[in-house]
């Protein structure tokens, strides 16, 4: 069973650590480095509670080995904002009541960041499609979509002017014919 010296840059801070080959990224982040904002949910790559950004892309940290992330830049929910200075996404979740128990929220917000960086003015359908890999068992998603829309407006005030509300956009974004 091999052990490996790896370097993870988490929220800008470089960490050197030694991990077993089988250590999952989420456990390295939480147990080795103390970034406990990232939650462990289903542990089977379905629920998205453990979503972090790895080299700029949302990934499920329960489905990556820490050794695979050697040298990567990781961004976790701790990097979004502080209690007194929320990130617009956090503000959106607060304003729109985008959570109840809050367990899925760190993952939801990290995926939302991914969605908004790629598409600053998403339709509701595009937000739902982007959040497909994040499950919430409390809210029914309506308020989560509202929260991401709220954040989009906050982050891109110019986008609102040319018609941000596109609830009934008739263009299907993909072949995904099933309702999310």
């Amino acid at each position: 069973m091999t052990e490996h010296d790896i370097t993870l840059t988490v929220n800008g801070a470089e960490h050197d650590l030694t991990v077993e080959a089988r250590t999952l990224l989420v456990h390295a982040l939480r147990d080795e480095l103390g970034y406990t904002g990232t939650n462990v949910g289903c542990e089977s790559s379905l629920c998205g509670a453990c979503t972090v950004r790895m080299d700029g892309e949302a990934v499920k940290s329960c489905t990556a080995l820490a050794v695979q992330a050697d040298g990567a830049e990781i961004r976790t929910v701790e990097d979004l904002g502080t209690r007194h200075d929320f990130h617009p996404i956090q503000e959106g979740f607060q304003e729109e009541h985008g959570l109840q128990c809050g367990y899925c929220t760190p993952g939801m917000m990290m995926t939302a960041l991914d969605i908004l960086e790629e598409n600053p003015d998403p339709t509701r359908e595009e937000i739902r499609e982007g959040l497909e890999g994040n499950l919430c068992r409390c809210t029914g998603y309506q308020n989560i979509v509202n929260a991401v829309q709220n954040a989009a407006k906050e982050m891109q005030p110019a986008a609102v002017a040319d018609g941000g509300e596109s609830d009934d956009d008739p263009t299907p974004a993909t072949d995904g014919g099933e309702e999310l």
Partner: protein
Amino acid sequence: MFPDGFDYYEASSVSEAIDLMAEHAGAETELLAGGHSLLPAMKSGLSSPDVLIDIGDVEALHGVTADGDTLGIGAMTTYSDFIGEDASEEHAPALYHAVRQVGDTQVRNRGTVGGNIAHADPASDLPGAALASDATIVVTGPDGERRVSADDFFFGMYATDIGPDELVTRVEVPSAADAVGAYAKKPSPSSGYAMVGVCVQATVDGGTVQSARVGANGVMDRGVRLEGVEDALAGASLDEATIDAAADRATEGLDTAMMMSDLQASAEFREQLVGTYTRRALERVLDRTPTPAAAD
């Protein structure tokens, strides 16, 4: 939900991966690509390899190239990177639409085209798309490259033509810039895998289907061509009547006694689903085909 212990090696090139496989030939060895099938299997105890050889970062296995005749997809190209290339939708429309429906955002950011095809999960989205797009799988081993048609590649559940000392290095799709592609899938409500998924690539000229290839996932123990549907489409005018006739022939030639059957869908139910999702895929093809008047 922890994987058993294993030894991990990272390959920086294809030849290093082949050497590592030879070196560990006596152990139970798995190649690690994006890890989105393998790691869940290891965490749930379904797979306990002694050695993992990580090929995910082999630079030469990343990226999409188009030379006009062929779209080449490096085996370690992630779904997201494939979708992000304009050439993918242009030259491989069927594969493009299937890849867009794999998993979810995070899964597509890690999972790879080659990993999916090499894994050969019959309920995955790409076997049928590889068949519909007439893909060639490039397999590399100690003796060099060999090229296997998708039609000859899938042997059964998780079983393919890849030898124990070989790996998939590239997927090649003949350019289908004048074709239309679609994928219609009924995902499992829990896993998102295809209970049934039907992938179509068709060339339509002046309202007439010149050629069509149709592949299905989730139906049999491997991705299969729907030959009755292909037959019904060839030379027919693409309209509702043809779609009805084609969907009626969806299971033609398939041994329905051997159809997949599980808690989520019995074989009988799948048999119906194949027809329904064939129809839905063909309706998307119809929607995406420029009308003869609009095409010049």
